């Protein structure tokens, strides 16, 4: 394994762990985005550019946005509940 590979493997282990251990969902979405970026780099180094494209589009852009939007929707639900039940 080259040093670059070793570094990326270690970084991916850390960033994946960070996604799990970040218990606050909004910050987790940010961690997911970063994790996606690290994995995309790792896939690039593993000679998988196609997969890296997928990974970067999906896991560092689309999914974090969907998570944030879902959390925003949940907040609005809460507000709606408060309006319904004064």
């Amino acid at each position, binding site marked *: *394994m080259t040093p670059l590979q070793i570094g990326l493997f270690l970084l991916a282990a850390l960033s994946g762990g960070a996604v799990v251990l970040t218990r606050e969902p909004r910050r987790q979405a940010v961690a997911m985005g970063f994790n996606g970026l690290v994995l995309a780099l790792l896939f690039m180094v593993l000679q*998988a*550019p*196609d*997969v*890296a*494209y*997928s990974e970067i*589009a*999906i896991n560092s*852009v*689309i999914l974090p*946005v*969907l998570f944030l*939007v*879902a959390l*925003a*929707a949940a907040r*609005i639900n809460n*507000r*709606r509940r408060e*309006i319904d039940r004064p």
Partner: protein
Amino acid sequence: MTSLRTIIAAFLCAIALGLASAGLYGLPAFGHYPGPYGDIINRQGPAERHATNMVTLVNFDYRGFDTLGEEFILFAAVIGAVVLLREHRGEEASARPDQADEAPIPERSEAVAFGCRLALGITALFGIYVVLHAQLTPGGGFQGGAIVGSATALLYLGLGYPAWRGMMRSRVLDTAEAAGALAFIGAGLAAIGAGAPFLTNLLPLGTTGSIVSAGVIPLLNIAVGIAVAAGFGTLFLEYLEETREPESGGEQ
């Protein structure tokens, strides 16, 4: 109670980690993929199919049937999400965009709006480029479709809710998604009609390196690109609808 759960979880997962690591030790060493499957394709694919991207070739030719199944997973997941979100809000809320009178993002400077539109144009073009060069360079219908689909979210930021809602007709998106899936399966059935096995390529292979080479692969990529873009567009549409403020429609 909670801490007990945490301890048990840590214990179980540590055992699982240990056993999995021990098991994976039985693999060939890292960097020594033994073949033979991938090597056969790398050796014979380019000449046989006039394509240069072997990953696309596997996805849309040698193992095209898998991709058909994957496309239907996407299709079913999007229908499922729509059923869960839209039906609850009431079908009307999505079918009548003209109702949308209020923009949830209050103040947008012209510069931001312009920037978003520019980004939108570039993103969409890039997505289409990625779809069209599937058989040649990294990329294809899945990646390109996802890029185009996420461009629709930029539309929301750049144009504001009413204009975005006016352009994002859920029925059009549904139809596009289904049509993409149908085109893929149609390509398969056409082969049966011609007396060949399902998904056999019937088109000429063209010149290697050209945008219309590799037979039916570009067409399948366009079909997948349309379906994926419409699928992600639908998801963004339904999720962003969920964030609308209570009084602005929806919940009747």
